[in-house]
């Protein structure tokens, strides 16, 4: 009955971003960047990447609010 959605919802994007964040921070994947050999600055680089994901989530939410204003 409903048309196919063109985009993911903000909640889906948020879940994906959260998953990526958890993957890089909490799982053993963190040992890729959390090593003395790569330098402490890389940790902040990863952090900046997370900020980028947060921007993505915020943009998706903003767009969703524009398209489907709830209140």
């Amino acid at each position, binding site marked *: 009955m409903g048309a196919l959605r063109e985009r993911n919802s903000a909640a889906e994007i*948020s879940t994906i971003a*959260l998953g990526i*964040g958890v993957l890089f921070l909490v799982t053993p994947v963190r040992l890729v960047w*959390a090593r003395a050999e790569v330098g402490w600055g890389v940790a902040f680089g990863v952090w900046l990447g997370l900020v980028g994901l*947060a921007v993505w*989530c915020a943009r998706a939410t903003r767009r969703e609010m524009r398209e489907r204003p709830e209140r």
Partner: protein
Amino acid sequence: MTSDAPLLAAALGYMATLFLLAHAAERGRLPTALSRHPVTYVFSLGIYASSWTYFGSVGVAEQYGLTFIAVALGPTLACLAIPVVWLPLLRLVRQYQLGTLADLFAFRYPGRLTGAAVAVFALVASVPYLAQQIRGVVSSARTLASEQSIPTLALQVTGLLALFAVLFGARHVSPRERHAGLAVAMAFASLVKVVALLAVGAFALWGVFGGVSGLVQWQEAHPEAMRAVFTPLEEGTSWGSLILLSFGAAFLLPRQYHVAFAEGPPDRWLLSAGWGFPLYLLLINLPILPILWAGQQVAPGVSADVLVLALPHAMGAAWLSLLGFVGGIAAASAMVIVTTIALASMTLNSLVLPARIEVLRHDAYARLLWLRRALIAAIVVAGYGLYLLEAQTGPLVQPGLVSFVAFGQFLPGLFGLLFWQRATRAGFLAGLGAGVLVWMATAMLPLFALSEGTPIDMAVLAAGLGMRSPDLWTVPTVVSLSINGLLFAVVSLFTRQSAAEVEAARRCADRGSAPVEVAPATSAEALTGRLAWALGQEAAQKEVERAVEALGVDRGDLRPAEQRQLRELVERNLSGLIGPVLARMVINHGASAGSDEDAALADQIRFLEERLGQRSGVLQGTAAQLDVLRRYLRSVLEGLPLGVCALGPDRSVILWNRALAVVTGVPGEDAVGLSIGEVPAPWGEALGKLAQEEQQGVDQITVRAREGQRSLRVHRAELERSALPGGAGTETAGTPNVTGAGGIASTAGTAGPAGTAGTAGTAGTAGTAGPAGGSGGMVLLVEDLTEREALQAQLIHHDRLASMGRLAAGMAHEIGNPLTGITCLAQNLEEETDTPDVRDRARMIVEQALRISAIVGSLKTFSQAGSAGSGGRARQAGVADEQRVAARVGRVPLGAVVDDAMRFVALDRMARKVTMENLCPEDLVVLGERRQLTQVFVNLLLNARDASSVRGQVIVTAQASGETATASVIDHGAGIPPDLVGRVFEPFFTTKAPAEGTGLGLSLVYSIVREHGGEVEIESQEGIGTTVSVRLPLAPPSKEDPGPSAWPASSSSKTSS
């Protein structure tokens, strides 16, 4: 050591700046673009970084390496969850005015115990944290100045913090109102500390290492320092648990909840904070490692917790030390101020007021403010007192970590609040209670007994959990949260939710109110009375007035639906003042449960309709499909050519469709929500009477509306109660929950005659008794029969005329033959006899026979004309007659015809003397047969004359309108009784004495005019007069005619008497 005077001056100067900024923002002296900018909101969220982050992060970095950034990475992850966690929370807080964490949990897990437990726990967990901030300020001051001034400094700073919090954190009676001054001051504090820390970091980088290359060289020369930074991350348990704790702390710490949600930011600010806040945390953490390494170089042996100050101090950069000190004051003060404000509101709503709500009965608003202010001061003093007791030793971060673990105990409850509707209050309290006990044993007690050894051996516990190096937070976090979460889940699964919990769960899941739990309608007066019990009369009236004003309705004209909205709005506003639990208690005080259950059910339907209407664009999946179905059925109901009125069990109007609005002239929006009896007259009374019937049935009623009398057939069908929200019954295919009276078609033919005006008479076949489980309300189906009945009456009239015409024709034929014989014989007798007496009698016979012949002639004329009605042969005859008339039709000046008629009438010298005046325009020309039209006006004038009194006046006027001309014969005579007006065109019907009229005059007029394609109307009022209007087709203007516009307004009058 430097002099303590600059420190004191810097601290007091900073606090003075904070006061000035807050004051300016409150007074509107700061540009709104600044005070209400998302950046201000982002920076005010920066109060997350307290003394712990500012001073203690360097200490954590020294001990646990890169783990220190986990405290900021947790909030970063939390910000990724803004659309699924923060935004729903913000909307919930905004919608239900949940000003504190305790209010939030007491709303979802309703009960006083919930609020009290959360408030007590938050207090216990926060006061050591507050003491830590004072300790941080004092430690930093000790680093820079002599010992003597420190106690004074601590006292002064604490006093100023309390004063600031009282002045700018409790300005409004509701904590949900935005404190512009507070927000600006907190943003300023965050700005100061990030600038200070970056400045110290830059100093460390360039002042100690000589730049980035120098730092790199130092790192290469000290690989052990780099290993110390990364090794703790390899083990991972501490890192992961700290991320988890700080994830929750980002929005569960009282200060974070207050700034993020309670101050009521718009949604878009939160979205900006989604990336702005993590960026801020990144910036403030960036200089930590350079400061640590530089400190280790320059000031070995100095506690890492104070390196932010000790580093520039050791390098002789006094100004930077002072800036660093001010940054520390900013970090500590912001945390203390907002935390005490949040805790004060929590304590007031969840501990003080539930115990003594009656304190608000006099001057409620002022008392609320002063109570909150007193609590703020008391909490600051408690923090200072704990600091003075010197109970805490160990690392600076320890109380903060303990606090983080404590507020982490709310994570399972928050998960239930947002995502698990099945979670119960019992589960929440059980989980929280167990978590708190574990927290007390593993985190709180060690905090106060660190120097004497912990009661629980952490190393053993850590080994049991498989951890190599025990830290300060992992064991408490893992153990307490595991037990908490497990109990929360298990107890929730094995306990039953109360109705209030189900309702709260639905609201938290943003699914709106459960249909069975919508607040019942309560009048404004009843609400005021209930509120007065707790808040006193004055505050109660103010609250109700405020809500009425917000709804934009008239207090005296509140419908049930609006009363429900009013009740909900008052409850929400009260929730902002005194918390949701007390608000509900006050609003329900003295209400008898279930007394207005029926009204509530009707309200719910309207509420659902209203809510679905608002949200139809955002529904998804099955809900969206159901909404499509709902809108389709709604359009069917709206588009039905029959009026539909659905009533609730309390007989209030739920649905009033378009057709009914047309029939009644009452728009749907004016009717919906009213009790059916309150619908504007005369419909409320008429339909209300029918709605009182319990049985199915069909009624035919006549209603005198403003625009005329309307005849209606109303079908009643009762609804099953199971059709309503909360009904136990389920609908099976093919058996809808409406039991009608047999359907419209089957009952339509059984309707009896119309009742009298305004009365309802059961005319149709009554259906079976209402369905089992009724009454769930009623459906009224309204058919407007007015036009149909008018047409039927006209048809009956025509048929009657036609049949009389045929009868007259037959009679004329039958009478005519013998009459001819009688006349001939009488004439023969008159001529043949010589006897005068016989001759006279024969002449009399001839005269009477001629009179009979004249009557027969009239009958023939009538029969020829009157047959032009309806039905088979009559219609064919009518067509022939029309053709005949058409052959003689021509342009007839109406004024001349009336003149002729007046002359004929005036010939009767024996008749009553009246004045006749012809005001017809001379140029008004109609299409017709002149002789017949003269006959029409002769008959009308004779009637008018006979009805008028001696010296009365009869006027004939005429005017053109469109393609017709209307001539009106007006008399001021006796008039015709209303019940006889409808019969005057019937043949042989007369109001005159038997010898004075045949009753054929007006019926002849009617027939002739109809033959001409015109119409006759009669209006009469007894004692005032009668007007007969004849409408005839207007002749098209001929070449000689000047056209209608050139016609005079009235012609010269002709008078005959």
